[in-house]
């Protein structure tokens, strides 16, 4: 499968980290997610959970059901196994965003900082498919890459105490969406009315690692309200582009 060498790092007696790389790059990350899929398929008795990240995989296990040595050899076997060709479908999830106005109070600052117009910022931010490297920090929160370089903007000097759920922001070279209302220091440039995480849904998280996100600028406040009402009732149908 991945013929990258796997390095195990200790994580106590009920977990272990399988490290495939220590940089942020799509190829290393794809190998992490391939390993996750391979482990899921095997249904190894004693594995409790998997936590994939940029370049590594944390494995929670029960040593009463599988020994750490047996676990390590199973993981190495799977990592060295035949290459899986199924994962060449690219899923791009469309996230409708209302840029600027009350929903994007920092967009003017981002534009000035980049020596661009607000319209140029919107076009640039919404022009690419952002790869979702991993989820973490909060339920449904995606770690996206890579923000177009001109849009990189430092965090707010003074973080806000209250950033509404669905807010789309920029912090240095990262961009992302806040799944829930929380304090934060990101430059807020817009907002999506979709709920990134909802326990009522069969699959609570809207986004998954390995997918891509495309921000779709909305035409106006009416469209925002229309979609928000559907999303709140869990009636909005997400648009997903699948490309081979």
């Amino acid at each position: 499968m991945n013929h990258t060498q796997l390095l195990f790092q200790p994580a106590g007696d009920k977990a272990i980290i399988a490290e495939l790389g220590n940089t942020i790059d799509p190829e290393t990350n794809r190998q992490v997610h391939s390993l996750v899929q391979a482990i899921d398929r095997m249904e190894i008795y004693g594995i409790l959970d998997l936590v994939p990240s940029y370049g590594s995989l944390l494995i929670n296990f029960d040593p009463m059901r599988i020994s750490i040595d047996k676990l390590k050899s199973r993981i190495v076997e799977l990592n060295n196994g035949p290459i899986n060709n199924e994962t060449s479908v690219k899923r791009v999830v469309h996230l409708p965003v209302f840029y600027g106005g009350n929903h994007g109070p920092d967009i003017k600052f981002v534009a000035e900082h980049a020596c661009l117009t607000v319209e140029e910022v919107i076009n640039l931010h919404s022009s690419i498919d952002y790869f979702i490297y991993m989820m973490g920090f909060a339920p449904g929160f995606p770690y996206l890459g890579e923000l177009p370089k001109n849009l990189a903007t430092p965090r707010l000097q003074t973080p806000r105490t209250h950033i509404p759920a669905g807010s789309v922001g920029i912090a240095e070279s990262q961009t992302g969406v806040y799944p829930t209302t929380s304090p934060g220091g990101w430059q807020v440039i817009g907002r999506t009315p979709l709920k990134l995480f909802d326990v009522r849904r069969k699959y609570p998280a809207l986004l998954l690692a390995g997918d891509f996100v495309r921000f779709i600028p909305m035409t106006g406040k009416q469209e925002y309200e229309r979609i928000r009402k559907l999303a709140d009732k869990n009636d909005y149908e997400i648009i997903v582009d699948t490309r081979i």
Partner: protein
Amino acid sequence: MVPLLKIIEPGILTTVQDRGRYGYQRIGVPVSGAADEYALRAANLLVGNNDNAACLEITVSGPTIRFTANTHISITGANLSPTIDGKPTNQWRSILVQKDSVLSFSDMKDGVRSYLGIAGGIDVPLVMGSRSTYIKSNIGGLGGRPIGKGDILSVKLTEDTVYVERRLPHGYDNPEYGKDHEIRIVIGPHTRAFADESVATLLGSLYTVSGDSDRTGYKLEGPPILHTVGPDVLSDGNPLGAIQIPGDGLPRILLADRGTTGGYTKIATVISVDVGKVAQALPGQTVSFKAVTIEEATELLLEEEQILAAISTGEQIIGGLDDRITVTVDGKAFEVTSENGEPISKSNTGSGRTKSKIYNTQATVNGSTYDFQVDINRRR
């Protein structure tokens, strides 16, 4: 009749918990579950439940609860002075409560978090496979929140629910948590990020539990830990018990509600049997660290699993033949027995988590009997 728990007073922070929510960390959902998992599992096994049934986790100042039908309960973890109808009640054993009995708590005598187990387990819906509460995102338990005044909780009774009388295995006392906590750790995963003396600082210093401590993690105050490059690493998974060292150099021990991933360096991981000890510590108490190997940590986990298994079966835990304690005199080994002739082995030395036990015993050699005291110092 299904017993109901009527919440007369909720206590400061009482939540429904089980062993935690697994399978969803990859979408950023924390495991949650009991902060002291061993105490929760014991609470369940003592009333005949599966060890993953839902219990109430009670913090510092406990609730006042009326039971609307006869039922069996158990109270484990911290000693928060539980009483039933005003009378002090036993912990770490199953207790029969009568219809309309009232359970309440008062002084915090030892430890911080107590667990109320009830035959059948607390009945709340499964959310993503678990009944644990994750308050920050309003997930699970009773509506995603702590229990409140006037709430009514029901219990999952089925025809299979059995009322049992159980206690800790013979020779095991109620755990005591104390005020000074020696926490065993496994060094890693980010050993490269720390200066050589950093591990020595961690192992050689006395830390104090800060008030900034909760189910997410415990912050410690004391000698700062130095980094080689800086406190940031590529975000990776957070194991339970991970000891993060952020920019200020002060250790933070991650517990049940920890974020699934983190970008701060992690110097070590608390071993699984000691995570509960951290969760039973109170701000102002001390923490010191001791390094152990993964093998030693797994051995300790096995001992703990044996105690839990013995609760269910009611069996005594006795050691194997080579587990016996012997005294060697002039090259000859004599087996040590207690006053009533019971052989003393390393595993029934009589303490669950207490530190030592003195046995008055005799050894008879060639017709002469010698009296002496044996102080069995458990490894715990």
